[in-house]
């Protein structure tokens, strides 16, 4: 009796992926004249098969291996560890049987361990001279290097006191323990693209990955550009597998510092903690940009949609659910600092706007302290994107610029977005329908917050305000029920 096995590969949507295949029957390789289109005859007595699908080097898909068991009567079944990554279909004839082994390959693979390892290899030099990044990060985070990629509780975090702000109009914080983010926190590596090659993904337990659940809502956080920091000696290592990319592009945006975060200093953004604090039940995705390509393929927002779909599929497979939702849910994109330049350029692109991702999937965009001269462009691009769709939301958080001309320009942009005169600073004002937010905070507002919280001299410059608009004000945006 012949027992034929035809391996083939597909991605999560079921479309064909070209691969080379290798198969082993109880450890012995099975011969085939054409490893791109094999048809193996499983030797009698085989109990275990492993089949590896290897896409071409320049394919966007990673290699995958599945393990199958073969019963004494020749029935082929997936072993538990592989069951989610393979579909089997068997037809039985009089004296033979044939099984199609459809191996599911992904554009992503888990790179969490790789990235953790990168954090143990900091550079010793910056442009200013020798540095001890390990000691600096130990001071910031309390533990360094991290032993895992979890998001532990932060004992004394400070979050916006949204109700008090609403009643007083003042920038107000309250101290509390930020609970650990329960769920999956991983770094995934995207194959074949120039950038982004790494994505931090935080999938909270509150969004179960069960069969038949609704499409997943996503929050895509776009950090600042990397090129600007090269002169100071950052991002000198290879992209993306070097310390700065792992630390500054990923870890720093996921975590808060260990005491009084985020107000005690600036730098760490604690994005998933803000998501949790705001009550946004959403998956956080942070792409790792690189010097040169920066956010690469994300400039084509249809690709961004495909990447988020692929992340959803990969994470469902990790949870042993073979069939992810066929689309993704409401998505919000936020950008910080020069990241707003990228976001506004993506929105300004007519081809992007005509695509289904920006048109149908992205529900809101958040601009977190763009440069003053970039604010009008952000408003124009976002308004164009939201034109004619009452469901779309735009939220803009800026600091009050020092220069009077910049103040005038930024306030005018706020007025355009709000379609009304904004109040005197500081403000966090929504449009009557709640779909638009403008916020302007002053350096002195932040200085007061710091002094009130820590009873210390405030010695920071404008960057404290700039970074903390992202590290703290994001909570305000996320609390607007945009998902």
């Amino acid at each position, binding site marked *: 009796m012949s027992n*034929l096995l035809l391996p*083939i590969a*597909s991605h999560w949507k079921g*479309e*064909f*992926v*070209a691969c*080379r295949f290798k198969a082993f029957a109880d450890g012995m390789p099975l011969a085939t004249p*054409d490893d*791109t*289109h094999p*048809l193996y005859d499983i030797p009698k007595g085989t109990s275990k098969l492993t089949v590896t699908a290897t896409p*071409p080097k*320049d*394919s*966007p898909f990673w290699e995958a291996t599945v393990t199958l068991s073969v019963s004494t009567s020749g029935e082929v079944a997936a072993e538990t560890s592989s069951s989610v990554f393979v*579909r089997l*279909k*068997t*037809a*039985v*004839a*009089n*004296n*033979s*049987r*044939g099984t*199609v082994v*459809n191996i599911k390959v992904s554009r992503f693979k888990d790179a969490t361990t790789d990235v953790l390892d990168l954090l143990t290899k900091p550079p010793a030099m910056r442009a200013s001279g020798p540095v001890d990044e390990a000691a*600096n990060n130990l*001071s910031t985070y309390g533990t360094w290097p991290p032993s895992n990629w979890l998001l532990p509780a932060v004992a004394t975090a400070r979050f916006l006191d949204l109700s008090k702000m609403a009643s007083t109009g003042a920038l107000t914080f309250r101290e509390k323990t930020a609970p650990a983010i329960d769920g999956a926190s991983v770094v995934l590596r995207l194959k*074949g693209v*120039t*950038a982004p090659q790494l994505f931090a993904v935080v999938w909270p337990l509150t969004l179960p990955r069960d069969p038949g659940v609704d499409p997943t809502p996503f929050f895509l956080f776009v950090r*600042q*550009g*990397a*090129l*600007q920091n090269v*002169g*100071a000696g*950052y991002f000198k290592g290879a992209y993306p597998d070097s310390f700065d990319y792992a630390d*500054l592009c990923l870890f*720093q945006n996921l975590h808060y510092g260990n005491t009084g975060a985020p107000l005690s200093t600036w*730098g760490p953004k604690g994005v998933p903690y803000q998501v949790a604090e705001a009550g946004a039940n959403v998956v956080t995705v942070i792409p790792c940009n690189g010097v040169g*390509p920066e956010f*690469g393929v994300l400039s*084509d927002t*249809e*690709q961004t949609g495909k990447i988020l779909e692929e992340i959803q599929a990969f994470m469902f497979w990790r949870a042993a659910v073979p069939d992810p939702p066929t689309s993704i849910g409401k998505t919000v994109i936020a950008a910080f*600092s*020069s990241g707003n*330049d*990228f976001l506004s350029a993506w929105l300004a692109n007519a081809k992007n706007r005509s695509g289904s991702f920006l048109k149908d999937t992205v529900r809101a965009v958040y601009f977190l302290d763009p*440069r003053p001269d970039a604010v009008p462009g952000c408003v124009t691009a976002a308004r164009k994107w939201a034109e004619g769709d009452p469901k779309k939301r735009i939220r803009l958080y800026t600091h009050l610029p020092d220069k009077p001309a910049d103040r005038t320009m930024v306030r005018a942009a706020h007025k355009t977005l709000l379609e009304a005169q904004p109040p005197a600073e500081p403000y966090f004002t929504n449009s009557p329908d709640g779909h638009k937010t403008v916020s302007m905070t002053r350096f002195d507002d932040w200085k007061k917050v710091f002094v009130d919280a820590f009873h210390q001299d405030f*010695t920071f410059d404008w*960057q*404290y305000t*700039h*970074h903390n608009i992202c590290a703290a004000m994001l909570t305000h945006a996320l609390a607007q029920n945009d998902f």
Partner: protein
Amino acid sequence: MGELTFLLNADPPDDPNRFYSLAQRFFTDAGATLIAAPPGGQTLEGVFTTLTDLKVARGTINLVSHANGFAAMECPLTLADQIAGRRTTTVDDLRLARDNKTLTPPGPGIITSKTRIVIYGCDVGRSEEFLKLLSGLFGLPDEVLAPRRLSLFISDGSTVRYRQAQTWSLVRKPPLIIAGASAPPRGWPNYRAKFVTDARDKFGRIATLEGPIDPSVDRLKKMLTDAAQNATTVFGRSFFMEEGVDIFPHGSQTVEEAAAGVKPRSNGDVVKAMPKTALELDDSTVVTTVSSADTYAANPAKTKFQITVAILAQVIDQPVLIAEGPNYHRVTSSPGIAPAADPASTGGGGGGGSTGGAGASSRQIQSLVDHLLADGATQEEVDALAAAIPQGDATEGLVMDAPDDTTDTGEVVDLVPPQELA
């Protein structure tokens, strides 16, 4: 669209082999549209003309014809050939017709990518070249299928069934039965014994996967003996029959010169797969080759020469599966299932590190499907298996590269605060 069936000939009144008559009943019962052969027999040219005149795109076209493994069908190529006395079309004739563009194909409005040509005859599927040439002359239908074995129609009184037979061929001079006799010159028992001995020698020389035949358990000899023990020229569960290879002179050749010039030819392509057991040693695994040495004068005047092949047949009482497998050979022009001229050009794009992929290549899929169908899997089951094959191209629409982004040119924003302030 129902099947269209051409009977390429009719049974001679005195022929005990009721092949065409039974075929007519078989296809009538099956609801096919029948086109009987004109008086004197059909030609391939006549088939083409009929198809052209009908002016309808065709699904399945059945060609019912005596045929043989020497790549010949009982159907002359053209009416002119028929008038010149030809009874058959050989693979050489098809090649000449292709090269000389002798026939005009029915055309793409009639022979489409969904047209299927199925031959109901004997053994002609053992010549792949015959099928390929026929496919080309028809104008590249989706597929041409022809039997690998002797095929026949059997009636149990009320129902006609299409069956195949396991056969063993031996070149014989003189013919099995001299005209007018009812038995071989030395009687059936002697003939059977001699045939079994010769066939055992011929087919037993071939190695099988299970090794040399064990003389103490000679399953080949037993199989031949069982098949021959009651066989005569009367059609039954087993029988003897003859195939003649006619010798035709070309140009100024005499018939004798033509006979002397017969080049070796076989009743099938070289079999590359080793038989698994002695029970598979038959005409489908061991070809018979004839040459000028096998010719003999068919009449005292030596105006006709021929080669005679005697065949012992044992009916396989199982439904015949008309799909690539032990029963039928199939050639196809469909890009999705045809063997690629260049393996690297086959869909799937896996070769050479290409990222492209226009979909799953069907060669292995087709092999699997054909194998299972041939082994009795139901069409439903096989369809479900085929449906599990991923389609499309997962790389379509994916962008992998993007130009360097120089958007980030504004005021430098520090990454970390000075540590003394942390």
